[in-house]
């Protein structure tokens, strides 16, 4: 399974780079959709059907909206010229990447093996959640009982996003 996951994640990285550098914005969106649906396959393989359902629906809706935006505006990517500032920012990001890999390499030794996580907190959830909450689906039981504040925050984020879109995008005011 790890080999399959590595292949999928590797092709997702390739698709993400292709999405950044595509000349045609429509092909960039399709490459970005490949990243999203690859994530769906990863979730299914890692046995997380709840996340997979949410990801596949949200990915489809955002993809449709972005295709509509691109078809209505322009399919051409903006032309970029290479000047001194761009060279400086690229150099800085490369430096940051090397620094990050250095510290990640030092930290990776103390991590557990892949799929072999430490079960200090989640063990209590897995063993007791079904009896305590009465919910067969453990994910929903944890979401709405042990981590109610967390879920309320997520719902508020979506609420705020809708209000923000309504505020910014409205041309004519309401009477």
């Amino acid at each position, binding site marked *: 399974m790890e080999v399959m996951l590595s292949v999928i994640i590797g092709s997702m990285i390739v698709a993400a780079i292709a999405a950044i550098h595509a000349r045609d914005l429509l092909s960039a969106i399709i490459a970005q959709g490949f990243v999203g649906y690859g994530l769906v396959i990863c979730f299914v393989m890692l046995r997380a059907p709840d996340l997979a*359902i949410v990801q596949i629906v949200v990915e489809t809706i955002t993809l449709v909206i972005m295709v509509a935006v691109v078809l209505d505006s322009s399919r051409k990517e903006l032309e970029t010229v290479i000047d001194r500032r761009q060279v400086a920012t690229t150099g800085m990001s490369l430096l940051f990447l090397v620094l990050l890999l250095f510290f990640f390499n030092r930290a990776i030794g103390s991590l557990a093996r892949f799929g072999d996580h430490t079960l200090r907190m989640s063990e209590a959830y897995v063993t007791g959640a079904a009896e305590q909450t009465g*919910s067969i689906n453990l994910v929903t039981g944890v979401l709405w009982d042990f981590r109610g504040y967390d879920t309320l925050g997520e719902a508020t984020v979506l609420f705020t996003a809708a209000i923000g879109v309504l505020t910014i995008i*409205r041309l004519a005011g309401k009477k």
Partner: protein
Amino acid sequence: MSVIVKKIAQLMSSLIFVYGIYIITHGHLTPGGGFAGGALVAGAFILLILANGSEYVRLKRQEEGSSLIESIAVLSALVLATVGLAAGSLVFFNNWLPGGIPGQLISAGTIPLYNIFIGMEVAAALITIFLALVIYKEEISK
């Protein structure tokens, strides 16, 4: 769009809508829940609008309605959580309704109610964002 696309979209969107309602109400039994089901319900409406064009729905009224439903759903989730504070021990998000038999549709106390409210909220928020973009496009082209 052509007649075929319109008819297929009308048929499919009803199925998608029912499936979304199923995912929301069975959130405590099967994978899924308020977020996934709400996004599915919103997808049914977005499919209808995309297939039939923006004249199919009266945009302004729909947007006002979805915005209202969104606010009411968040408010009722908060009220339900506050009632949990008042009933029983002093815990916000207290599961104060009787648990019932695990595995049945009506069980798990307040969790199905939270799922329904969040499903309404997510569906209404996604439809509001989509309708705001459609209205913006129409106002731009005028």
